[in-house]
């Protein structure tokens, strides 16, 4: 007997493969119709899955190299966003009044369209600066991290185990080590699942706005050079990396937070 979760995965895979086959066959048919009537092939705008795979095989090295640069910037942005969120949550934890100041500001910043910020950021750091990209990435990854960790801090603070800690005269270090850190792990995974794709997206947006390299720049170049295959392949590589990281995080979460779903 196949488990229901395995069966769902098989269905999902079949639907995905079905969509790709439909895309390939549908586009080939429509392109032949268009060319018969003297119009340009659809391939000029939307590459077929076959073209995307071919592009991967030809331009794989370039895509991988540009993607590595982007991931490096995204990692730096993620670390900065995470550290800043941790600092703010720690301040909120020990000085609750900070919450009423910082959280509304964070919500306001998050609701701002990042593209609107871009000229200011580029002016601030200089055209083509890696720091501008890292800043955008940090800005985007900061908010989901803050929201998750702040929820964790409120949840932990409200637990009656904190009363027990007070009665036992536990030190601040003991409370952090025994209560706060272990209880924060599930929230940390949730925040990372949100923040990592956000940081990659932030880095790509930053590269669109002005960079000398990176997958975002490659996407912009392939757009202007009318290379839809390379554009789609670049985009797909970003999606694949994000999905792989989320899958890895899910595995780690299962290993370290096994008690959560018991």
């Amino acid at each position: 007997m196949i488990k229901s979760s395995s069966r769902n995965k098989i269905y999902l895979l079949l639907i995905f493969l079905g969509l790709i086959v439909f895309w390939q066959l549908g586009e080939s048919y429509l392109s032949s119709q268009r060319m018969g009537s003297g119009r340009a092939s659809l391939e000029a705008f939307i590459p077929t899955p076959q073209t995307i795979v071919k592009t991967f095989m030809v331009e794989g090295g370039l895509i991988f190299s540009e993607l590595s640069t982007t991931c490096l910037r995204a990692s730096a942005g993620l670390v900065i966003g995470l550290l800043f969120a941790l600092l703010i949550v720690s301040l909120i934890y020990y000085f609750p009044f900070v919450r009423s100041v910082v959280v509304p500001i964070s919500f306001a910043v998050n609701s701002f369209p990042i593209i609107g910020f871009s000229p200011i950021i580029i002016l601030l750091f200089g055209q083509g600066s890696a720091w501008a990209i890292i800043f955008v990435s940090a800005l985007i990854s900061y908010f989901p991290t803050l929201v998750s960790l702040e929820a964790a801090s409120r949840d932990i603070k409200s637990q009656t185990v904190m009363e027990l800690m007070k009665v036992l005269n536990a030190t601040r270090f003991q409370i952090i080590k025994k209560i706060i850190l272990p209880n924060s792990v599930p929230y940390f995974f949730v925040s990372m699942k949100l923040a990592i794709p956000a940081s990659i997206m932030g880095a790509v947006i930053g590269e669109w706005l002005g960079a000398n390299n990176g997958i975002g720049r490659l996407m912009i170049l392939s757009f202007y050079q009318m290379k839809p295959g390379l554009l789609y392949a670049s985009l797909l590589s970003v999606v694949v990396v994000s999905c792989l990281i989320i899958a890895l995080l899910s595995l780690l979460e299962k290993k370290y937070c096994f008690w959560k779903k018991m």
Partner: protein
Amino acid sequence: MAGESLEIKNLSKSYQTDQPRLVLNNFNFSCQMGEVVSVIGPSGCGKSTLLKILGNILEPDSGTVEFGGENIALLRKEHQIGWIPQFPTLLKNRSAADNIRLPREIIGSFDRDVSLLIKTVGLEGEENKYPSELSGGMKQRVSFAQCLSYAPKLFLMDEPFSALDEITREKMQGELFAITAHLKPIIFFVTHSIEEAVFLSNHIILMTAAGEIFKTIDINYQKIDRKDFRNSQEFFDSVKTVRNLLRRL
């Protein structure tokens, strides 16, 4: 240890909501080591607040709590206060046994063997389960074992047996008696069960909704044979007296 007593003097506490709400009003009481005190009263009359002040978790607006002539804060610093909340939140990432070990880890005790405690609270075979796998009653027993693990001088219990079935509740009440006889702590507990209060206590404090002591009832007779006491005329008379007084609140 003998001669040490708990002295509560002129204790008042109010909460600031839209309007200040007085939950404890000029509360005075004293008891000796080895005595069990139960607090009964309508919901919101300040019973849990009283326990939190006794545990030095909350500060009163006025009044003092002293143990052996010293401020209660000293007793807390010496790890001599046990705390069993109404809804114990155990650490989700720790098994029942590891949760029981937690107070000893905090205090810095080298004795981490909790098998006897697990047996005492009837959790044999369940010690490796995580809180999400435990029933409400089991969690209360873990919380009880946590408290027993460091043998404090003052036990503060907020409806400690409310989630237990009748038989387990009787067993745990028996354990509480054994603890009283052996360690001679002061046990202060909040309950809604008149029978439980009469069965366990030396003193029963009846509180009004305004947070004042309505009456203190002393149960003076000797409860030598526990099983017989539950069926004795004295027990039924005391339950009746407390019930009638509560109806007058």
